[in-house]
């Protein structure tokens, strides 16, 4: 038998049938459902008189529209409220488990899937959300789909798919102190571009990746889609297995042992060949900050805003000029001279417990700078929030002047009332710096939790490694 990549193994395992045109019918083990991309799928199901193929393969949660302030008040915006209640109605009608807004397990769909053990190594996992790639960190095939495909999975437990090409991104050697998973993935996107992974399934490997916690790996896989790839994944190792232990939906008893035995096979064979390999040296990665309106428009914090005049490709130069105008930045401005108005620590990229610990280390004993209008922490789930509170992180943040909120997507995409006003600049741990993403006219700078926390304290971007207490 020829050597296989991890992607080959996951793919082959789920092929129900191969079609003559080169596509396959792929079995889907788990679907996660949220309120924004599911109503039309349930409606389609109902209009066609169909029922879900396997209701208990699905897990639902409302995350995009939910307020991050007092939940007892309900949702003020009637349009948002209707979307959230529609999810509740649909999941009740079809017998799908759903975590309601006041359930402690509620949170961002890509945080709660792994946290609950609902997402497991070896599974195919889909969700009507492009950041489903996050969950590939567990050694599963996880990818975002559109609403038509959500309906297809509900009705058939399968998808018609064409296999992608394989891309290995190997991050070799050890990461310098103070540099984090977020800096790795921003550096990767700056290197290969936002379309660099289009048509590929990415496997992240190398010493620096396997040294990361599961939380860090999820941050990396999360932004695969910002590199153009529908899915990213990391091979199973001890860190993966330990993460899965004793999660609510993890396999129990003898199933646990069987599962672990299988999970251990979920690695690329030594002599497996990838369609493309990109090798990066972790020792060369610095803390990163984005300056533009595309996630590839990123430079190290020690650098400056680039000059479009230096770009030879006319389409790229045009994009850079538009971005600088939108961001109100001049070429040559030092990144450390840029002053955010708001700081957002949250999102499916960076709202897990480790992210909050990383930010708290910087903030501990400090104060949010005077120029910062709002600094907020939005935990990825109710359980992350509780854990942080047990560790006293909430007090550290509150003492420093941060707002401590309830779990949800919040200002990553500003579907609820958390948003930037026109012209406001934000240091954000989220994943997209598109025009208007965090609120119409808002200007986003993507950074790690440590860098966001440092910017909040300093009032401008700063190399987190220069803060003595930070480089943990």
């Amino acid at each position, binding site marked *: 038998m020829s050597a296989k990549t991890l992607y080959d193994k996951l793919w082959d395992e789920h092929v*129900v049938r191969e*079609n003559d*045109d*080169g*596509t396959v*019918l792929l*079995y889907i*083990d788990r679907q996660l459902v949220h309120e*924004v*991309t599911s*109503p*039309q799928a349930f*409606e389609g199901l109902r209009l*066609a008189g169909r029922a879900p*193929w396997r209701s*208990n393969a*699905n*897990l639902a949660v409302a995350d995009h529209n939910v307020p991050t302030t007092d939940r007892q008040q309900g949702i003020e*915006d009637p*349009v*948002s409220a*209707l*979307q959230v209640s529609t999810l509740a109605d649909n999941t009740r009608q079809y017998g799908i*488990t759903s975590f309601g807004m006041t359930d402690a397990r509620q949170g961002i769909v890509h945080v709660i899937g792994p946290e*609950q053990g609902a997402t*497991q190594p070896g599974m195919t996992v889909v969700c*009507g959300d*492009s950041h489903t790639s996050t969950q590939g960190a567990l050694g599963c095939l996880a990818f*975002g*789909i*559109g*609403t*038509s*495909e959500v309906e*297809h999975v509900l*009705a*058939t*437990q*399968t998808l*018609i798919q064409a296999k992608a090409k394989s891309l290995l991104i190997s991050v070799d050697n050890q990461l310098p102190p103070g540099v984090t998973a977020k800096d790795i993935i921003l550096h990767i996107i700056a290197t290969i571009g*936002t*379309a660099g992974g*289009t048509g590929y399934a990415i496997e992240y490997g190398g010493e620096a990746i396997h040294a990361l916690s599961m939380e860090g790996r999820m941050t990396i896989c999360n932004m695969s*889609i910002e590199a*153009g790839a*529908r899915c990213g994944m990391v091979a199973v190792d001890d860190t993966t297995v330990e993460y899965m232990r004793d999660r609510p939906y993890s396999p129990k008893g003898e*199933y*646990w042992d*069987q*599962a672990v035995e299988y999970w251990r096979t979920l690695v690329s064979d030594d002599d497996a060949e990838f369609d493309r390999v990109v090798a990066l040296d972790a020792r060369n990665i610095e803390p990163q900050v984005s300056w533009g309106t595309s996630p590839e428009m990123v430079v190290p914090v020690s650098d400056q805003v680039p000059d479009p005049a230096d770009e030879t490709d006319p*389409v790229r130069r*045009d*994009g850079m000029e538009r971005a600088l105008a939108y961001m109100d930045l001049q070429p040559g401005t030092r990144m450390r001279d840029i002053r955010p108005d708001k700081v957002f620590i949250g999102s499916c990229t960076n709202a897990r417990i480790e992210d909050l610990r990383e930010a708290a280390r910087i903030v501990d004993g400090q104060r949010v700078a005077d120029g910062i209008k709002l600094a907020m922490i939005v935990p990825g789930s109710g359980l992350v929030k509780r854990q942080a509170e047990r560790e006293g992180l909430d007090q550290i943040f509150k003492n420093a002047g941060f707002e401590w909120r309830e779990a949800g997507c919040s200002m990553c*995409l500003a*579907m609820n009332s958390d948003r930037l006003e026109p012209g406001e600049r934000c240091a954000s741990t989220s994943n*997209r710096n*598109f*025009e*208007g993403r965090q609120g*119409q006219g808002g200007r986003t700078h993507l950074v790690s939790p440590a860098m966001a926390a440092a910017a909040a304290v300093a009032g401008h971007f700063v190399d987190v490694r220069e803060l003595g207490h930070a480089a943990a």
Partner: protein
Amino acid sequence: MQPLEHIDGLVAPLDRANVDTDAIIPKQFLKSIKRTGFGPNLFDEWRYLDHGEPDKDNSERPLNPDFVLNQSRYQGASVLLARRNFGCGSSREHAPWALLDDGFRVIIAPSFADIFYNNCTKNGILPVELAEEQVERLFQQTYANEGYRLTVDLPEQTVTLPDGEVMRFDIDEFRKYALIRGLDEIGLTLEQADEIRAYEARRRQDKPWIFDAVD
């Protein structure tokens, strides 16, 4: 799904790279629980001078005269000409729904984001990938000739220019077939229900923990 075989359509140029789905349909309109009605909010932040909300009457809103699709010569366009990596970002199917609702049936670009490309083909929109220099030529001709039209033939996989030049494009067989016929994919898949059940039975035997209920 509306079948798509031949389109002879007016071309509108959107001359910027990396147009993301947040730009195609901003987040506040994703709160709808319907599939239709997104057309007036297509490219909302570029199209209007004020901030749009789902309950606003769009006919009363001030149009941005600088936005290319607001020019009278492009009204009624069904072919959108775009630059590389069109449709990047979120998986929202509201993006093709908005394009379709505004009358677009064909999008021509040097490259598309994967999920967006896929979502188009599920909704009767044909994404056509052409070489960068071909797209550049189409931009030049669209700007130079008011009322510029292209003929797209999906069975033949061709785009024909007014001067008779033919540009060929690739599309995989399944998507082509589904678009031409306007197929209900779920219905087709359910014809293979026995195979799905047989696979599921094997998997349940082999890896029973996968089937533990989430409840």
